[in-house]
């Protein structure tokens, strides 16, 4: 079975979605990967994931987004999934102040378990619930600046800024990587190499398959 053309890519970027339960992580993911929003969405048990291949800075990037359960006690297993992640989207709900207050805990979590160079973006989701907003944009903006994170507000329901959020973090990851591979002394981080190996490995498998088929 040969890879379909849409499965060819220059880079594979793994990004994790984290944040408190019920902030809309799974719907951000489905909006980005399938342009869908599910009003009857279910809680995430453990880890789920989806991919989308898109153009970033003129390159074809396969974004592999890992969606994790929000409940604190699942942390024990979800942290295993930070391995190899180049980016993290840290989501809170603009109508629920506690989900914003918990952002610092999630940051600590990332610092403990993820790669030190991981690109982190703070996302305030559910801006469509205007009458219920309880976290001011400026507060989150200020916090993000202090912590050195990029920041954006989204509505997965109304499809506002979702594309932009993912585009931004993927571009940022791309810039860091291309910078790294330019400076010859420094080897590229393991996860990026993995991404490239995967592409090569893929074509190798294809080649073998073709052999088998023709012989």
């Amino acid at each position: 079975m040969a890879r379909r053309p849409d499965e060819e890519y220059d880079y594979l970027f793994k990004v994790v979605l984290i944040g408190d339960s019920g902030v809309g992580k799974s719907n951000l993911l489905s909006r980005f990967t399938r342009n869908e929003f599910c009003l009857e969405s279910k809680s995430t048990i453990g880890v789920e994931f989806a991919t989308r291949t898109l153009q970033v800075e003129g390159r074809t990037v396969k974004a592999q987004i890992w969606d994790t359960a929000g409940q604190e006690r699942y942390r024990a297993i979800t942290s295993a999934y930070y391995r190899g992640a180049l980016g993290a989207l840290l989501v809170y709900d603009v109508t629920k102040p506690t989900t914003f207050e918990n952002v610092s805990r999630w940051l600590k979590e990332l610092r403990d378990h993820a790669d030190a160079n991981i690109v982190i973006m703070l996302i305030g989701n559910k801006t469509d619930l205007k009458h219920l907003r309880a976290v001011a944009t400026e507060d989150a903006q200020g916090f993000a600046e202090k912590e050195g994170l990029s920041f954006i507000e989204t509505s997965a329901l109304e499809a506002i800024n979702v594309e932009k959020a993912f585009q931004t973090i993927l571009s940022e990851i791309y810039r860091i990587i291309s910078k790294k591979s330019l400076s010859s002394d420094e080897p590229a981080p393991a996860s990026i190499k993995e991404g490239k190996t995967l592409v090569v490995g893929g074509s190798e498998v294809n080649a073998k398959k073709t052999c088998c088929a023709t012989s």
Partner: protein
Amino acid sequence: MWRDPGTPTDSFYEVRPECTDVPKTKFKIKAGKTLSVRKWKAAFTPEGHLDIGRTLGRIHRGGIHPSIRGEVWEFLLGCYDPESTYEEREEIRKRRRAQYAVLKEECHQLFPIVGSGRFITAPVITEDGDPIQDPIVLLEANPDKGLATVSQENATPCSSTMVKEVDKKIIQWKLTLHQIGLDVVRTDRTLVFYEKQENLSKLWDILAVYAWFDIDVGYCQGMSDLCSPMIILLEDEADAFWCFEHLMRRIRGNFRCTESSVGVETQLNNLASVTQVIDPKLHQHLETLGGGDYLFAFRMLMVLFRREFSFGDSLYLWEMMWALEYDPDLFSEYEDPDSANEGSSKAKAKIRHCGKYERENMKAKDAEPPLPIAVFLVASVLKDRSSKLLTEARGLDDVVKILNDITGNLDARKACSGAMKLHRKYLKKAKKT
């Protein structure tokens, strides 16, 4: 030969008309196969002793008619002894309903929203025991008033609870309440049943009371998926609670968490050992891909395939699993755990009353406690996709993707037969080594 195509069961668990992409139930009521109301009634003596052996066979062949599911499940899960009389069971039921009322009242005293027909989705307490006054909670607690009035009045959602809590047990319990609420609003929402606010709050109440009753487990995401069918099948809230509680007795270990582990990892390790024995190549491949921990099977074990099957089919799968695993001593073991080891001699006479899976475990006479059939169900799902996994999975993401594709495509009966077959194979191979 004319074959009964069966009656579809979707009408029993009605899906909201606007939800169009819900998988259809494959389970059909088949005359002569499915345990019918008539057959079920005929399985009792006039005093109420149940011929469980015959009943198990029928469930295994064709599942249970939806109209009697609740009462049959109570036996399958060990809420009642099949050898008891109607009278004895009525006595137990009464006692349990009273016990539930007491538990619920305790919870209501601690947090008045329990039992009020409403529920909350934002935290009400910090880990240090300080109360949180989230406007969302205020609104949820006083739905008749607008948000503006509520915050102006600074209405307290739960009167006496605005002081710092010091009792660790109570703090721990209150910390779970909003999580339960967040999950209740996301559980089986495609069903017409959950359009009613009272059914949502029933689900919330039962889970909140359970979290208080079983403080070690408390509430863990996934439990709402397991509890939801109970409420639909058993009308009385207390009966639904105890049926859920008996289900939890079988699987609560999966939900026990520590700082560094989730209980289900024990079963994932078992799954790894089973796969290693019955399909070493696949196990090797998964390990190479970094999936040796089998975390990709986490959800299947945690919510017993509820996400892989339609609502109706997962109920069918569950009752087949429980019928296969059935142990007639379940009730006495639950009621009187000390007497559990006394009955080894009478076990022989009862073998006819055991589920097929249980019988094979008894024959194997393993010193280790038997593995749950769910582990073999997952193993069989993996084995069925072994060649696909071996040739197409080049990363853990491919594994997850291939397994995601099974959603809505599994056949409950075939899955059970597959699990039974693997179990036999495993016992044989494990003996040799």
